[in-house]
């Protein structure tokens, strides 16, 4: 067996045992006594092999910074036959909105979340905290020292994100800028026209 194949196999066995805890690149490198570069290469190979193998139900994913072995999406329906009770609905629309605001603006206070939604968010915040998606992250040094909330690594995992940078970019409304641009151009034109008038008079 050559070295790179051996490394891939060793990594696979570590990941098998680690399960949903996952292992970071750093941990894998330390465990396999290889460089992070070598590990990355081996993981890439492992992933490609899983994806191309039709007789494998397992593949590799990176969530919340950790690599883990997961079942392939295409067998999700088959997997569900394994469970007696289908999992409950993920969460309410209200909780999702609150989670989105916290994810993008963290660390953030409850009042800021309330202001954006125009409605109280206390209950949703409690639910999210009890499910482990968000956690308290210190307090804002302002009057009342309100609690700051931030998302957890568990949130990243459950939402299939590797890091907060993987959050889809907020859709910006560009129309507004275009509008002001249009207005400004028109205004500039008007100014120039007036200047010209003034010039011809003199």
């Amino acid at each position, binding site marked *: 067996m050559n070295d790179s194949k051996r490394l891939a196999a060793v990594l696979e066995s570590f990941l098998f045992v*680690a399960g949903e805890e996952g292992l970071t690149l750093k*941990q894998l490198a330390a465990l396999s006594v290889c460089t992070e570069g070598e590990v990355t290469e081996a993981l890439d190979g492992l992933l490609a092999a899983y994806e191309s193998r039709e007789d494998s139900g397992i593949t590799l994913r990176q969530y919340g910074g950790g690599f883990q072995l997961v*079942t392939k999406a295409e067998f999700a329906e088959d997997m569900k036959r394994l469970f007696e009770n289908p999992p409950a609905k993920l969460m309410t629309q209200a909780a999702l909105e609150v989670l989105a605001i916290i994810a993008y603006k963290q660390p953030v206070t409850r009042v800021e979340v309330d202001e954006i939604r*125009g409605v109280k968010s206390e209950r949703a915040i409690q639910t999210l905290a009890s499910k*482990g998606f968000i956690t308290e992250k210190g307090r804002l040094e302002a009057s009342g020292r309100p609690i700051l909330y931030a998302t957890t690594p568990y949130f990243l995992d459950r939402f299939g994100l590797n890091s907060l940078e993987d959050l889809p970019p907020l859709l910006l*409304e560009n*129309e507004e800028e275009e509008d002001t641009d249009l207005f400004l151009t028109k205004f500039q034109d008007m100014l120039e026209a007036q200047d010209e008038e003034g010039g011809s008079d003199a």
Partner: protein
Amino acid sequence: MSYNVKLEAFEGPLDLLLHLINRLEIDIYDIPMAELTNQYIEHLHTMRVLQLDELSEYLVLAATLIEIKSKMLLPVHEGDVFDDDGTDFEPEEDPREELIARILEYKQYKEAAVQLKESAEERAVHFTKQPSDMENYGSIPQADPAEELDVFDLVSAFQKMLHRRRLKAPLSASITNNERSVGEKMDEIMGVIVRKGGHCVFDELFEEGDTGGLVVTFLSILELMKRRDVVVRQQGNFDRLLISLAIGGTEG
């Protein structure tokens, strides 16, 4: 038992406003305030029948809409755009500006929530397993000491543990009896006071026990006072309370 019904499940006043803007195909940058305000208030009337909890928040926005609408009815000062020197330009502020900004910000996060949901759904089709229990093979060193852990790692570890416990929790619960009834506790307190020579400091009776136990102790003291078995005294303001056996016993 009352049931709360949400019409078309609006997540708040801004959500309702956004819904109306979409339905009426309004240009969000040029909102016809009169039309929007009317539609909004019409919706509120329907919702009032349902006694929605968040009605007050909807009313705050209704007030804002009416304020903006009335501001726009005021004649705009049509003075010279330019000052005398022809340089300074002060546009009239559109009273709708702040509202538009709020709606747009809310819209952003509402859309982000949809995307988050999609990404959670994509994640949910991949199943994984709990870490294997390797206890029989020896212990696995926990966490790389080179990686510094802070209090938040502890918190998330705790949350993870709670989560697992919830998953493993049996679907039945057992109810334990109160350790002591008030009657038993009363006897015990009397015993303590007698042992201590007829006097006892209030705080000493509360040195141990869970919340339930503490409450029972407190109730017992109240009961003893009511029966005039004990007298509670205080030397001065904020002094410690002193519980003594009532002199003359229970004859009163």
